[in-house]
């Protein structure tokens, strides 16, 4: 009995449920936070004010996470006091937190409306002047969401002309964003006017007036947007509308320059859309094939499953260069590697045709190059018995194309091929027979080793 109390030392259990909240900034470790805080103040006990307000913040976040808007509003009511925190660091951080959480609550709360939101936004803009532009922009987006374009525009204009001593110069990218959004709104009006114009007859007496209007708008907008899209970033909607307007007025060189810059400038983050816009533009301009191929080549590296890859394949097939032909095969295989494309009949059709063509052209090595890395998983991924059955049921044409590919790659003994072959289909009968012959002739697999 001597060390009885030792025995009593129960297992370590921690049934305290940590109410950690994932914030937008990433992972959040509440225990770490408290630890860090005690270290920072030299182990001194935190004031209850600081403790309760940070607890309050967690309660607001938890309520938001659970979509309990009412509770969130209740805690928010108390959280406002951090604006009066004697800790200047916390006091300065408070307006932004309050704005983010508060606007979220007001966005969803059943008792909230546009008016409440406007009052809140206007108040918050003036609490911490540092956030004026950010809040103005988000406020405008809220109004846009509610279809209040005019108010949004007025809001942006106000923000644009806002001045506040030293802060004016440090407005940074925000002011460009605000101007660009303003430009986007102008683009929207322009676009509507353009639609009107297209409906009008050229001889219509109103035509000239509207056309003039359209022209004026364009000028203002381009000034607003062009500043922003020179700054590295992802500006898809802005670029798109800007280019549309440039094109409309025949400034093709300008448009191409914008798009090329957007796609190729190394300071910009990698953005597939940039290449897609450029490609579409070149296509519209009927640019030489080699130019388009080089654009899509980059897209192929970023998004090998993009639907444009089939167009890319066509371009490559039509090319005179042999290396393009090889790449064409690669692209098709690449597309079908993705689960989302498994039922893409065009891709299968292209692959079936192109495989046959390649094999007929004595390029067995190309096929084997592609196949080697896939032979472990494609059979189960595409050519299982299950897929054969369901493909046949859903789309016989697709099943046929796939069966052909399966036959070529796996030999005539493969399950998929055999299953389709067994199906007695009157219309497809001929096609299947032809397929059988081709498989026999060109399959890369020695029939003896098929399974």
């Amino acid at each position: 009995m001597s060390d009885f109390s030792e025995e009593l030392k129960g297992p370590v259990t921690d049934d305290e449920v940590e109410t950690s909240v994932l914030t937008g900034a990433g992972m959040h470790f509440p225990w770490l936070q408290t630890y860090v805080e005690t270290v920072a103040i030299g182990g001194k006990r935190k004031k209850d004010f600081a403790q309760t307000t940070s607890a309050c913040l967690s309660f607001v976040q938890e309520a938001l996470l659970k979509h309990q808007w009412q509770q969130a509003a209740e805690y928010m009511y108390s959280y406002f006091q951090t604006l009066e925190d004697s800790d200047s660091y916390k006091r300065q951080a408070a307006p932004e937190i309050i704005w983010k959480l508060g606007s979220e609550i007001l966005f969803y709360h059943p008792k909230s409306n546009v008016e409440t939101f406007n009052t809140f936004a206007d108040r918050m803009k003036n609490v911490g002047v540092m956030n004026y532009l950010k809040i103005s922009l988000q406020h405008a987006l809220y109004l846009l969401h509610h279809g209040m374009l005019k108010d949004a525009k007025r809001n942006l204009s106000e923000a644009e002309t806002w001045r506040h001593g030293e802060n004016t110069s440090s407005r940074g990218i925000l002011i460009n964003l605000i101007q660009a959004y303003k430009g986007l709104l102008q683009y929207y009006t322009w676009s509507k006017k353009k639609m009107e114009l297209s409906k009008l007859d050229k001889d219509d007496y109103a035509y000239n007036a509207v056309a003039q209007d359209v022209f004026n708008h364009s000028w203002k907008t381009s000034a607003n947007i062009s500043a922003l899209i020179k700054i590295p970033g992802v500006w898809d909607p802005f670029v798109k509308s800007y280019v549309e307007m440039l094109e409309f007025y025949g400034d093709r060189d300008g448009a191409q320059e914008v798009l090329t810059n957007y796609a190729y400038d190394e300071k910009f983050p990698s953005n597939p859309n940039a290449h897609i816009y450029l490609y579409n533009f070149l296509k519209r301009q009927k640019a030489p094939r080699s130019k388009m191929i080089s654009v899509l080549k980059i897209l192929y590296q970023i998004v090998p499953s993009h639907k444009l890859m089939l167009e890319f394949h066509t371009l490559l097939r039509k090319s005179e260069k042999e290396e393009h032909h090889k790449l064409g095969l690669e692209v098709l295989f690449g597309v079908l590697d993705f689960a989302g494309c498994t039922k893409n009949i065009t891709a299968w059709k292209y692959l079936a045709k192109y495989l046959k063509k390649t094999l007929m052209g004595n390029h067995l090595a190309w096929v084997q190059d592609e196949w080697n890395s896939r032979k472990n998983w494609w059979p189960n991924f595409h050519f299982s018995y299950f897929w054969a059955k369901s493909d046949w049921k859903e789309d016989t044409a697709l099943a046929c194309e796939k069966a052909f590919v399966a036959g070529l790659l796996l030999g005539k003994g493969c399950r998929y091929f055999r299953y389709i072959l067994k199906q007695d289909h009157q219309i497809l009968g001929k096609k299947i027979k032809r397929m059988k012959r081709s498989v026999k002739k060109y399959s890369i697999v020695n029939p003896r080793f098929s399974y």
Partner: protein
Amino acid sequence: MDLEEAEEFKERCSQCAAVSWGLTDEGKYYCTSCHNVTERSQEVINTDLIPNTQIKALNRGLKKKNNSEKGWDWYVCEGFQNILCQQAEALKNLGIGPELKNDVLHNFWKRYLQKSKQAYCKNPVYTTGRKPTVLEDNLSHSDWASEPELLSDVSCPPFLESGAESQSDIHTRKPFPISKASQSETSVCSGSLDGVEYSQRKEKGIVKMTVPQTLAFCYLSLLWQREAITLSDLLRFVEEDHIPYINAFQHFPEQMKLYGRDRGIFGIESWPDYEDIYKKTIEVGTFLDLPRFPDITEDCYLHPNILCMKYLMEVNLPDEMHNLTCHVVKMTGMGEVDFLTFDPIAKMAKTVKYDVQAVAIIVVVLKLLFLLDDNLEWSLSNLAEKHNEKNKKDKPWFDFRKWYQIMKKAFDEKKQKWEEARAKYLWKSEKPLYYSFVDKPVAYKKREMVVNLQKQFSTLVDSTATAGKKSPSSFQFNWTEEDTDRTCFHGHSLQGVLKEKGQSLLTKNSLYWLSTQKFCRCYCTHVTTYEESNYSLSYQFILNLFSFLLRIKTSLLHEEVSLVEKKLFEKKYSVTKKKSRSKKARRH
């Protein structure tokens, strides 16, 4: 100009020594013979604001309207006096007799002012280094005469007479004369006249007044009166806003402006901490040189027997356990008057943490009965459950498991609510505190902004959810027989865990483990550290439950349990005969 009203002012004029005063339009006294205007003004405060006229009497002559912006001239100690006044009033509303405020607290405070040389003495601290005023002696005596109710108080507790100084030695006078020049200097940094000086003052041997100290004064007075409020109750009432503490300054008279250094003195951003206030209580008691407090006898609320009963009811344990707690109290000698009574002049001044101790006794009894090793309590529960199923008509045996389940649920709910309420607590006062006049508009603007935002969000809150604050109660849990969801265990019997042997009852459990194996040998106050994971889950739960009730740290309760055990088992050998229950303690 009203000469009649000026008649009560009987000091000599500092210019011509005449006693002939008139009142100016601003309410100041001026000498009718030489037209010298004094600093003093007629007493103008509204008696509704500071109901305690005795305490208020101290303020006489201090209020002087500078201008509406600057407010009155006032001293830091007056601020504390006002807070004490508010607190005393709140205690009265809680049902404490008016004597507490009028006699006990008032006298403690006077004694404090005297001991800290702020008033009622020959050389108040405020005049040191400044030119002494003329006619010092006359002045003090005339003041003395004008305030007979102050010290010749008949209901004055005996300690004043028995104190070191006899009445005649105590000199009261206009407490803090201060020159006008120094006002304008200090007013830059604080609203009170001596805020800056006060926050810098560090004098050895003098207990400096702080806001938490006001609670020490309150508790001392409660203790003196042997009122039915424990320290943990008092602090809980503070937390529940029944007693002014946080932002107590916002109820100061309108003309007492606070800013600058006053912010550090009166602005409070934490709830009082049990151990801190406990320590301060002893500190103040010793500093005031108070005589032995009235005896804590068996009929006092603070006596462990009564407190144990209260806490047993609170946590839904069987009434029968009270016999056992009484037994432990008796064996440990913790119910003795000398042990329980606070005696500040004793060599080692200490008072008992009555509430913590009572709870610790209950924990010890629970350990005696159920061992709390995560094993025995459950097997005893199985027995009780079986017995209860078989004998439905009899008085049920106490089933620890069932009790645990019900208490766990109730405790978790309570704690959750408590945490939510704390998170929602509004700390900031309607009167914002600011550093200087420059900050003032900013502070007020911030406040206005917060109020506006709150107003806006209050429309989004369900109005039914925000009910008014609950009325104060010394009980936090309620257990009644009628409530079917929550079984009340008060009437359950302990038969299942006790067995008869001869005439006495023995606990079925014959083992015991000590919460602490070794006591710290050094003179530090801590007995042991409480490492939660080293103890059984049942023990942890019970400590958590009780320390939540008292709003104290679990380690403090664990420490108290260890102290009770130390007393209990030290006596073991000397009282073996009486102690029929075998408690086998293993010690190293």
